[in-house]
């Protein structure tokens, strides 16, 4: 199976609000409200960590969810956000300038 890497886009506005994450695309002004699971994935999307590892290390220990199911849900989630241009997906680590540097998050 191919590896999936995810990185936050620089074009978004984002803020933690309680346990949730609010994100707005500067491209089309679409507003997203991420639940705590999705917010964890978003925060971990540094372009360097494979999605499977994010799910294994950040999601499964915190939420009572079966790893295979969690990964399938996560793949669907990142695919949806990528379609709106607020996450970048790649099969190798992401280093392009449109991804947000982790120190600024």
């Amino acid at each position, binding site marked *: 199976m191919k590896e999936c890497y995810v990185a936050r886009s620089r074009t978004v*506005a*984002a*803020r933690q*609000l*309680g346990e*949730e994450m609010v994100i707005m695309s500067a491209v089309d*002004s679409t*507003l997203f*409200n991420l639940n705590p699971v999705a917010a964890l994935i978003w925060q971990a999307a540094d372009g360097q960590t494979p999605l499977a590892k994010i799910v294994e290390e950040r999601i499964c220990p915190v939420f009572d969810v079966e790893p295979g199911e969690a990964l399938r849900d996560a793949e669907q989630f990142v695919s949806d956000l990528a379609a709106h241009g607020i996450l970048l997906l790649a099969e190798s680590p992401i280093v392009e300038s449109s991804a947000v540097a982790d120190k600024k998050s």
Partner: protein
Amino acid sequence: MSLMEQLNRKALGLGVPLSVHLDVTYRCNERCEHCYLEHDGKNELTTAEIRSFLLQFAGAGVFFLTISGGEPLLRRDCFAIIELARELKFNVKLKTNAVLVGEKEARRLREAGVEQVQVSVYSHKPEIHDAITKLPGSLSLTMEGIRLMRAAGLKVTLANVLMRSNAADYAGVQALAAETGAHYTLDPTITPMLNGDSSILGMRLPAQGLRTVFRDDRLVGNVDDFCAPPAPIDDEIREGIPCSAGHTSCYVSPWADVYPCVQFPLPCGNLRQQFFSEIRAGSAQLREVRAIRAKHLPTCSSCSHLGTCTRCPGLALMEGKMRGPSSADCEKSFLRTGVATAGMLAGRAVSPPVPSHSALVQIQL
């Protein structure tokens, strides 16, 4: 309930100031006849101070940041401020007259990820627009800036402040918006100057002009719905907050003064003396504003318009009492529906400084 409404409700519950309006300067290259500011540039915020404040805003949960002035692009560090704000992941809206926006500036705003730029346009006629701004050639410069920003891919809104001198021109400004692919907002709000001078209120759109606006379906959509008599008041409305000012929104001046809203001249603290979080939590003025519920308004709580009126507590304060009616909003509710307000019936909301003129309304199109 829309996602934005859910977001506001959640922020209200958490006590998060979701929106901050930051005026980075009061200096301006225009001298608009209705402007409420004095264009004093002395002792305005330094870049380092603004950086510190932005970090504090982000830590407090601020999501929407409006950068305005004065003319913000008069600051040499304006782009550095905007780029820092974007690095901190604010949703940035810029208010500018666009006179200083060339191709390079438009591209830089786009690359920074500014979500929206709002530009004041008063008329499609240069002789009207330029007479209001007192800057010869300003309409031409502004429209060129707008076109360049649109070409760069920025979302632009033409804000059309409507008053006596340009009352007949809103259709022309709407056409300019359509021609440039921009959004259009009409705003017949003229507020007293921050120094208390209310002489500029005489420029407000007369009642007949506002009545015409309220009945123009190109502006308000379904006129019957927009002008319908107020619906019955329920407990949710009575227990609700009258306005987001001081709750989820906040204003910071170029001298670091904190107010509940740009239109609410109640000083609550200064960011040169206290942290933002300290002012938010400790200001007696903000606590007082936040304690007010609709049921606490002595006159308005008994008004049939309580659930639909856009009563501005800042305008009410400028008329004497922040819990009182705002005569401008009373008049607007009346002109819209034909139903007199409690403030009018009590004889309290028809006195100067806002006689028989119009009202505070913002119609987003």
